[in-house]
Every structure is written in structure tokens, then in C-alpha cells.
């Protein structure tokens, strides 16, 4: 691909003069798009602002005047959502194009500020502390409403996270490597249950063609949770046979979903999870000590796997 390619295609008659002019303007750099740059700036701005504002209020609790800060935050939040609803496009089951380029970020800002308000009220007044689960559930419900009404995938992922944390499941890698993930011993069962139910709902919604572009986000969370949950259950050791079967079942499912949704990320999860499970299974049963067997195993299994993928490469083609 060079700057002369459009010209070459034009001269060979693949594209018309009109198309050539349009495309050549882009590849030659006559027209430059700053679409991603502006979006990145906005995204960073929203992140920095909500983070900074959150810490600011957190540090100055009791100094700023509680009522004042809650009111300031609430006003900002309401302004964001007020703007969002005022300009909202009518609800449909389809993917809705945002009315203007910053619209999505106003909604995101509103949602993040909403979390700050909620956290602040909880911290300051404590009356929600006893009902913390309830307030998290309320946040989740509100975010689901916003996500569907205003068609926002980002808020949807916040909603799923909130719903998961209602079940005390944390869906962030930050928790994984700090070792706090599923600190409670039987949380992985909750995670497996939660992800199964949520993914069933997501599939049902997709079948009815309600916001089909949300399916990926749902399934991504669910598969991650399911596999991490069942692998942890497996490593726990007691009922490992059951978790082994669960991982295999999940992998088969992910395999079909990957084909259905044309998203090979799920395939990646499935293979990695199934590989870990199989290796664990073999380690517990057939070979335990001899180190040479492990070398042979990694060569044979991974080599065989590579061969399989290449042999059936047409099966793994993405045709979008």
C-alpha cells in the first residue's frame, strides 16, 4: 500500500474517477481525519475530570460542606443526563447513531459522576452502608436503563460491572493480579452461576433482535467470568471433575458462539481455558513426575493445535 495505489487502481479501471478523487484525498493526506485523536482527548478528559473531582471531594469531606458538594455533583450529573435526554434519539432496537460526536461522552461523564455521588452519599451518611447491596443494585438498574435508552455500550459495561459487584464479584484484572479476585472461597460458584444466567439473557435478547450490538459486551464479560470462575474451582481441587466438565462445556459453547458472532476472541478464551483444564487433568492422572514427558506434551499438544488451526483455516476465517 502506497500513496500511488489509488491512482494505480484508477488507471487499471477498478475504481471510477469520482471514487479515485475521494480516496486519493485521504491516502495522499490532503484531508486528514482527527476523529480518533479528538475522541481520545475527550475520553481522557472525562476520566481525569471524574477521577480528580472524586478525589477532591473525598479529601475535603467535611470541609467543603457536605450538602454543597452533593448539590454541586448532583447538579452536574443531572445536567449531563438532562442534556443527554434532551438530545436523545427515539428508542429503537437497532444501533442508534449519536446525534453529535460528543454526545456519548456526556452520557459517560454523567454515569461516572453518578458513581461519585453514590459513593459520596454512602461514605458521608452511612445510611446506605447497611443497604450497600441494594444501592449497588439500584446503580446497576439505572445504568442498564441508560445503556438501553441512550444506546451506550460503555455504560452497559458499567451496568454489568455494578450488577456483578452486587453479587460480590469483581470483574477487573486489577483485582486478579492483586490476588483479591474471588477472595471468598465459594465466590467462583457465584461467578459461574451469574455468567450462565446473564449470558442466557443476552442470547435471548439477541434472538429477539434487541440491541444486537450489545451482545459482544455481555458475552465477553460472561465468558471471562465463567472461565476464570471454573478454572479457580478446578484448581481448588475437591470437585475438580465437575469443573473440568464445566470448562469443556463452556469451551464448546464458546466455539459455537465464536462462529455465530464472528468473534474469535471467545475462541481464544475457550482454547486457553480448555488447555489449562486438560493439562491439569493430565497432571493429576497420567503423568506426574518425569520432566521429559512434559516437554513431549507441550510439543505434541501445541504442535498438534497449530496443525489443526492451519489445516482447518477456512473454518476460522473472518468474513466481515
Amino acid at each position: 500500500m502506497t500513496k500511488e495505489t489509488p491512482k494505480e487502481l484508477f488507471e487499471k479501471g477498478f475504481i471510477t474517477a469520482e471514487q479515485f478523487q475521494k480516496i486519493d484525498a485521504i491516502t495522499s493526506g490532503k484531508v486528514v481525519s482527527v476523529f480518533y485523536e479528538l475522541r481520545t482527548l475527550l475520553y481522557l478528559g472525562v476520566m481525569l475530570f471524574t477521577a480528580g473531582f472524586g478525589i477532591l471531594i473525598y479529601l475535603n469531606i467535611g470541609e467543603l460542606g457536605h450538602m454543597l458538594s452533593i448539590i454541586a455533583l448532583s447538579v452536574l450529573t443531572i445536567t449531563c443526563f438532562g442534556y443527554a435526554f434532551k438530545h436523545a434519539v427515539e428508542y429503537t432496537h437497532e444501533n442508534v447513531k449519536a446525534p453529535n460526536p460528543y454526545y456519548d461522552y456526556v452520557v459517560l461523564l454523567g454515569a461516572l459522576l453518578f458513581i461519585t455521588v453514590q459513593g459520596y452519599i454512602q461514605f458521608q451518611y452511612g445510611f446506605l452502608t447497611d443497604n450497600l447491596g441494594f444501592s449497588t443494585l439500584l446503580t446497576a438498574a439505572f445504568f442498564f436503563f441508560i445503556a438501553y435508552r441512550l444506546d451506550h455500550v460503555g455504560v452497559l459495561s458499567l451496568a454489568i460491572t455494578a450488577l456483578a459487584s452486587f453479587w460480590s464479584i469483581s470483574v477487573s484484572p486489577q483485582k486478579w493480579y492483586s490476588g483479591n479476585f474471588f477472595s471468598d472461597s465459594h465466590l467462583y460458584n457465584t461467578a459461574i452461576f451469574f455468567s450462565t444466567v446473564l449470558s442466557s439473557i443476552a442470547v435471548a435478547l439477541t434472538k429477539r433482535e434487541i440491541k444486537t450490538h450489545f451482545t459482544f459486551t455481555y458475552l465477553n464479560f460472561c465468558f471471562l467470568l465463567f472461565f476464570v470462575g471454573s478454572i479457580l474451582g478446578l484448581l481448588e481441587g475437591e470437585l475438580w471433575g465437575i469443573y473440568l466438565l464445566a470448562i469443556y462445556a463452556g469451551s464448546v459453547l464458546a466455539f459455537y458462539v465464536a462462529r455465530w458472532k464472528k468473534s474469535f476472541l471467545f475462541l481464544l478464551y475457550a482454547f486457553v481455558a480448555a488447555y489449562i483444564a486438560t493439562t491439569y487433568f493430565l497432571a493429576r492422572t497420567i503423568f506426574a513426575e518425569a520432566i521429559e514427558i512434559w516437554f513431549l506434551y507441550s510439543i505434541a499438544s501445541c504442535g498438534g493445535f497449530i496443525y489443526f488451526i492451519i489445516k482447518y483455516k477456512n473454518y476460522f476465517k473472518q468474513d466481515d
Partner: protein
Amino acid sequence: MTSAYNDIWVYNLAVAKEAKKWWKHGYVEQDQLTAIQHSYQAPFYHPNFTIRILLFIAALFASSGITGFFTLLVADTGRDFISFACIVYGAASFFILEKLFISKNHFKSGVTEAILYHSCGFVIGGIGGLSDFNNVHGILFVCLIVFSFAAFRYLDLLCTIAATLVAAGFLFFEFYSLGGIFQQIIPFVFIIVFTALYFIVKSLQKRGVLKLWYNNLLIVESISLLLIYAGGNYFVVRELSVAMLGLTIQEGKDIPFAFIFYTLTVLIPIAYLYFGVKNKDIVFLRVSLLVVAFSAFTFKYYFSLGHPEITLTIAGIILIGIAIGVMHHLKTPRYGFTRENLLSEKWGSMNVQAFMISQTMGGNQPGVDQSSMPGGGSFSGGGSTNDF
């Protein structure tokens, strides 16, 4: 020496990929795309990104198994023999990569990358081992040669990054070990050398030679710009002077030529931004955004009033303001800039963004079991971005 790949096929693949983007944005019709894809064919095995990652992981595991066997064979011999075996093993991997995979039309398939990095690692490790890992000059030089070779012959982008950074490290280390005045002028050497490199890359791009290495040149171009900036940045110079040259800075004193570095810290980002806008150069623009942020960080670091949360909030407001202002300004395209999305980038989808949002902000929602510190958690997620 040339690339290991058939250059016509590489070109065809790139054209077909690009045409698909045009089709997605409605610039060309479906039958036109089919016609283009039909005449720009490449028999490469070049799967999609996820499959490549899978194959990469699998190939790494498989080759570590092979390595394991060889380790058992040579484990009891001496250090020199092992080092020598590593070099032979690495060289053999290069050979296998070409004969077994590239000749079967693998093109950046994940397997090729895995074997390539594996080979580089063993050759470098082996040569390093021969010299007891003491000879830093030699090791850096070998790294430079091996990475440049891999970047050039296999069009590999990660190796390009590695080669450019090693080149910078080599330059730094050579001047550092000369001592005295040479240590003082390292920043200026960096600025001069990488400015020269930048213009060489630019002229190569303009003359159209090395068009097969288009993406590699783009990377060298961006890193050169970043290194020029790093050479002039006050923070980098000061901290490296303290750490490497043993400079001690007394109260009320400053590093030598401090004034120059302050000026450069301000001027270089402005210059980048200016050239980016003037020449409509997207590389300059993107790099300028990065270095503006780093300059802001530099000044905050030494002249901080000690309120990072206020800085964050204000920085956020400024960023939102600028972004909305520019978006508004570009409602109709001006000076050849547009706010519309002309050609999609791979990582630009909303799904990726949604995942980012939940990982940076949503992940620390107050959980039921954290009731001792409710709400506090929801802020710390954002804190992960405060390296701004």
C-alpha cells in the same frame, strides 16, 4: 539481502486490506471490492488477529518444549558450550522459520513471530553468555544487529521498535563510557542524531524506496520524534544526570544548561504541534499530544503546589474543553482537517472502548464485602490514570 517475503504478494495483501476498509466506509461498491481482491491476490496464510495470538502462544509453548529437550542434552556441559549451543540453536530456528513456515506462505501468522523472537532471544543470549554478560558494548551491538536484521528481513514491527530503542541505548552508553565532557553533551547528540534519522526516514518515504517497509519506517519516524523530545526534556535530562552521572543538585541550584532544557521542554511540543497542523502530518500530531502531556507532567513535577487532585480536575476540564472546541470548530472541514471518521482503525471500535471503561472505572465499584470503606473504592479506579 532483502525481505524474506515475496514483495508483490505483500503489496497485494496490503492493497486488498485497504480496499476492504474503503468498502466498509462506502467509498467503493461490493463488486469493485471483489474485483480488486481478485486481481490483488496473495497466497499468504495470514489469519485474523485473535487466531494469530492463539498461534503465537501455542508456538511459544511448543518451542519451549523443544528447548527443554535440548536443555537436557547440554545441561551438564560447560558454560561456553551452552552459550555456543544457544547460538547454533537460535540460528537453526531462523533457518526453520524460513524453510518450514515462510516457504509455506506463512505471513505474520503468529507462528512466525513466535519463532522469530525465540531465535533472536537465543542468538543474543548465546553471544551474551560467551562474554559472561560483562561486555555491555558488545551485547548492545549484537542486539542492534539481530533486531535490525529481524525487522528488515521479516518486516517485524516489534523488532523495529526494539532495534530503534537499542540504537538509542547504544548511543547513550557509548558516550556515557567515554566520560567527561562527552557525558554532558549526550542530550545534544540525541537531538542531532535522531533529527538526522528522522529526515533520512522522511526522504526514504518520499522517494518510495523501501515501500515494503512502510509500517516499519512509520515506527522509526515516531520513535525518532519521541527520542528528540526525550533528549531535550528537562525531567529526562535531570533524572538521568542524577541517576547515571552521579550529579548532585544542591538546594537552590540546578543542572547545567537548565535554561536550555526548560526552553526545549516547552518549545519542542509546540513545534511538533505547529508542524503537525501546518503539514497535516498525523504522526507529528499524535506525537505532539503525547509530548505536550509529558511537558505538563515535567513542570508539575518540579513546580507542584501539591494538589494532584486539583491538577487532575483542571487537566480534565481543559482536555474536554479543547476536544469539544475543536470538534465544534471542525463541524465543516477546515484546512484539510475533518472530525469525521474517514478510515477505521483496528482498535477504534466502541467494544474496545467499553472494555477500557469498565476496566479503568467500573472495576472498583463498592462491593458488598467491602462495607468498611464504602465508596472510597470507586475513586481509586480513576487514580490509575493519574500518571498524566
